[in-house]
């Protein structure tokens, strides 16, 4: 075995251990902040796997999108809404845990079965390396144009939804019933306090 091949194998094993252990850690850790940071680590390890497959553009995109955007936003949300109180006890928690563990074990068994029964063609197709960037662009704007555009529409909808949620004062009347709905934020007074005081006295 050459030096390059053995280095690759060692890297693959380390990355796999990081991904699997990290994934288990995300689910089982009590502290949600640790889970979120661990998620970032798992995303980076997945980018490492892409690098091993000689797909450097996909690896860089993985880090940019998942670590730089998704994970940072998750952390942001957790840190801005971090309440220091214990959650209320939930009825039948033990039963729920058993059921979800069963569902997850079933999924795992299914995946392992797929892995074992599929006739993998080894070695796989040779990677095109640096040409991949152009090839991805070509595919996105020819045969994958519809999914690409649909994804952008989905993102636009999410953005509009976020703006509507953030500025609740634009939706004063309920769309269905036509009645007035109080959706103002609790912290924000809808009119300046001084004017309110003057008119009531």
């Amino acid at each position, binding site marked *: 075995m050459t030096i390059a091949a053995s280095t690759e194998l060692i890297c693959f094993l380390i990355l796999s251990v990081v991904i699997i252990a990290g994934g288990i850690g995300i689910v089982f850790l009590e502290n949600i902040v640790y889970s979120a940071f661990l998620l970032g680590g798992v995303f980076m390890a997945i980018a490492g796997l892409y690098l091993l497959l000689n797909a*450097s*553009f996909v690896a860089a*995109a993985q*880090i940019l999108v998942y670590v730089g955007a998704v994970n940072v936003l998750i*952390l942001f949300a957790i840190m801005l809404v971090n309440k220091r109180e214990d959650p209320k006890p939930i009825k039948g928690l033990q039963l729920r845990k058993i059921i979800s563990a069963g569902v997850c074990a079933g999924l795992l068994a299914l995946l392992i079965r797929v892995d074992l029964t599929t006739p993998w063609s080894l070695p796989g197709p040779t990677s095109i390396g640096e040409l991949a960037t152009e090839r991805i662009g070509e595919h996105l704007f020819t045969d994958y144009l519809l999914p690409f555009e649909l994804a952008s529409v989905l993102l636009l909808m999410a953005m509009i939804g976020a703006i509507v949620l953030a500025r609740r004062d634009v939706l004063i009347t309920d769309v269905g019933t036509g009645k007035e709905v109080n959706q103002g934020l609790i912290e924000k007074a809808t009119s300046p306090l001084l004017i309110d005081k003057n008119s009531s006295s």
Partner: protein
Amino acid sequence: MENISEPIFLALINPGLDLEFSFTEAMKGLGLSSQFAHILWLPLPMLLVLTAALIGVLVTVWLERKVSAAAQQRIGPEYAGALGVLQPMADGLKLLVKEDIIPARADNLLFTLGPVLVLVPVILSWLIVPFGQNLLISNVGVGIFLWISLSSIQPIGLLMSGYASNNKYSLLGGLRAAAQSISYEIPLALSVLAIVMMSNSLSTVDIVNQQNSAGLLSWNIWRQPVGFLIFWICALAECERLPFDLPEAEEELVAGYQTEYAGMKFALFYLGSYINLILSALLVSVLYLGGWGFPIPIEWLAQLTGLSINAPLIQLIIGAVGIVMTILKAYLLVFLAILLRWTTPRIRIDQLLDLGWKFLLPISLVNLLFTAGLKLAFPTAFGG
């Protein structure tokens, strides 16, 4: 047109200095296999660039102290070495031997991991900084995109250290740093995209080569003046330099996410911010100011002397001039950043976010659209 295309042709057939090849040959001469010689070669450029980055930080710290002193009509460091050049070494030594304090209620693991996560991506990004045709660690195809994606890891380190310090100022500083970083990443990436569109490549070497056909006149700054300004503003914001240093605004937040840090961990933050500043300056010079190119194409000058472009002496001079030009341009920009830091007031957080989202983002989108239009209309001038 004839004059311009000839040096490009010369640059294509001439690979320039290839230090790796010479090193491997020398090692083979000593009786080592080529694979082993390659492994011996690998750490050398990395160590060299790391050392260069650290020396660059020392120089920048000295410049910062001297320029700030001049801006405030003081003398600045004077006793440590001539003109105080050894002052940054003294600062570094002080930080090195200081006690490493971890607050009692802080989160030990995350507190230690935070500064590391801030520093490592910045150092990794030096992978793609070219000092000459072959004078870079690795000419990876994704080049400049690698830098953008690596710099997006940094906010996680900032959030981590802000959270782990268990201090409200630290947490606020970390949140501000992350918000600022992700807001300015988008216009930054869009202005880089305009450059990439003109040079048809993400590789930093190709981007520089495409600018050096006619020396000073063919630099990207003339074709992308708006992009240059956007990139520079965003780079300053990403480095948290003064008009945008809200994450560590000392009057409001003590020192932001750095408040609880001391000793070597604080030094890591300090080092990270200065290495990032130099890196940004280097990338501005690579993307907009012709990288290692001399204002007059050096191939023309070589033709005047009558020597072949492949003569060893000419190659050596080209390499040396390339390194000097890259560092000179970068340090001019660092000097500009330092002057800006000591002469401009800090802006408010809402002004910062307004500037990023309502001004720079639309402008950079328009710039991108404009570049695409110009590229279609004048393919020769805008790299068709």
